């Protein structure tokens, strides 16, 4: 029993070591997909800002026009929405491109050996650059609305790390699934926009029953993650550990199981693509 567990840990360490050995490829592929994305575009990398900004403007208009009525407390609605849209768009964008990454790079998988984990991870990394660029707008909005900075903002990198772990874990499952059955890609594309409405992106998720609230938070780790961003950046509050403990465990187990499963079946990719 103990021996089995030890082997599993070694297995995981081997997978991580291999990814580290190929880090140069990881960075080259990430920068490549950013360059490909914005090559032959007029506005170039400014497109990274376009989607979150335009979505924010539309919802601000809807809110102003009283079509929906969102209570955001002391936070002005535009910055509330943007602070949710920014990590959400990063989450959706990286899941979309990570899901298809193995199939997109099929010509490489068929021809050459390298740890296949590199592909979904580099898809996420290239979206991370978009995320950082779009963050500039958030900083601008914070200046515009005179948001006071609090020491709790130091937790933002940790929250981002948790989000990355969640995204990576999911990406391993989804990219494998998409490789074997192309349905997965359509499911991700179809479900993600709907998922936004049960996540606290453009309005806070506040349910009367505390059990239901707990359940929602546990199964959808993006709720506590986005809430924690808002707490740390806009409200100057430390994230509530009771709220984020379960999602963190979920994220880590997703990553570990995802990585191990991925590593175990990656030799089947070439012939099944």
């Amino acid at each position, binding site marked *: 029993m103990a021996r089995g567990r030890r082997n599993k840990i070694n297995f995981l360490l081997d997978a991580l070591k291999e990814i580290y050995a190929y880090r140069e490829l990881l960075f080259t592929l990430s920068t*490549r997909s950013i360059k*490909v994305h914005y090559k032959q575009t007029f506005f170039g990398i400014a497109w990274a800002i376009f989607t979150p900004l335009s979505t924010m403007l539309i919802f601000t208009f809807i809110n102003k026009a009283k079509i929906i009525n969102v209570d955001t407390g002391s936070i002005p609605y535009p910055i509330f929405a943007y602070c949710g849209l920014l990590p959400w768009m990063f989450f959706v964008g990286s899941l979309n491109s990570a899901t298809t990454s193995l199939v997109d790079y099929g010509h490489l998988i*068929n021809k050459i050996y390298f740890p296949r984990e590199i592909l979904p991870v580099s898809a996420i990394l290239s979206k991370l650059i978009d995320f950082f660029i779009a963050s500039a707008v958030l900083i601008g909005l914070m200046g515009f609305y005179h948001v006071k900075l609090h020491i709790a903002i130091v937790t933002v990198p940790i929250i981002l790390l948790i989000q990355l772990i969640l995204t990576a874990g999911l990406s391993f499952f989804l990219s494998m699934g998409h490789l074997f*059955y192309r349905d997965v890609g359509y499911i991700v594309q179809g479900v993600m926009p709907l998922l936004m409405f049960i996540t606290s992106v453009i309005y806070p998720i506040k349910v009367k029953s505390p059990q239901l609230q707990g359940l929602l938070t546990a199964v959808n780790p993006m709720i506590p993650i986005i809430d924690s961003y808002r707490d740390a950046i806009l409200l100057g509050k430390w994230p509530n550990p009771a709220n984020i403990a379960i999602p963190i465990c979920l994220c880590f187990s997703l990553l570990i199981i995802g990585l191990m499963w991925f590593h175990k079946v990656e030799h089947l990719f070439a012939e099944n693509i």
Partner: protein
Amino acid sequence: MEYAVEFNNVWKSFRRGERAMLLRDAIPLMLNRLKHHRSFKEESTFWALKDVSFKVKKGEVLGIIGQNGAGKTTALTLLAGIMKPNKGQVITRGKVSCLIIAGAGFHPQFTGRENIYLNGAVIGMSKSEITRKFDSIVEFAGYGLPDYKKFIDTPVKRYSAGMFVRLGFAVAAHVDPDILLVDEIIAVGDAAFQQRCFNYMDSLKKSNATIIMVSHSMPNIINYCDRAILLKEGAIVAEGERHKVVDILENEISKNMNWFSVENVPTSKPRGEAVLKNVKFNNATHTKDGLCFNFAQQIEVSFNYDCMDYSLSDTTFSVVVYRKRDGCRCFTVFSHFSGHFPSKREGCVQLVIKDHNLLPDNYVIDLEISSIKGSAPLAVYRERSVLIKPADNIYLNAQLYGLYQPGNISWHLS
């Protein structure tokens, strides 16, 4: 003894036919299988490799040959680590590089320079390593012109197909692997580029790297490999000395090429106005497969003739050599070219062909009496199977293959 590569009882299967790519198609398939109690494996797998075992020593060059679908490329992909065997073990010791990766990861919108870095990273080179070898890569690709910088900073989508592939090979040829896998290298580039590829392989060989080479070009196998393996339908049918293994495959191929029998080798019907008889190949060994010569051995023929009533000044003797497997006419020699005409109506011709440059293969030799003015020959004798035996320690240049010359011919008419 440490082996660089070990294949231990390797089995590899593939699915036959199209796999269901959508769940919609996959679910009924699965239900169907449950209903009929058939396992997926029984109905749609075929074995690309069946119980294949071989070992390659460090520094050895192994050739893998076989007809299409024999499992050669499957063996290489297993060695490259792209796939894993169903059963058995594939062991490689050292860094593996593969020349089938040429151009892998190239992006058409990127310039040649950007793609060199990208491709280099994909095949496991570090950035500093690529920077160090950059000029050499560009030179290898054959852009070594003074204004090559124009090309190297142009998106590769504007490259010609040849430039594109050459650049891919150039990058791949700058990895320093312990084990190099080569899949049909000869197909790309001009002679100079191919020479660079072989120089690269030579330098690797000198540095004691192990090379495994798949090729349909038998001269290349004979020139570059120490040993060869013949695969047929996923199993090793011959292994060992390169000439023997190549011979087995060539015999098999020529056996199957029955659409081209010797009978179809072009010749016109003799007019029967002369007689050609008592043909003797004096220095040939007679075997059950026909006449046999060693490589580069001179060919001595003698025959008697009778011109009957035909004008002697219009009569000439000729030798025509055809390659048996494809009917290629290697060379034709006429006696009147060197001023030899028959002086009598009946007599004997002795002929010696030296330096004929015929490569080890099977040939058909026609001896003819014909008119200088042309038209159909007066008499023909055909030797249907003349074998030039393969030779050891003779360097056969791939470029020479198929280039024949009659060499040094001496006629003696009496």
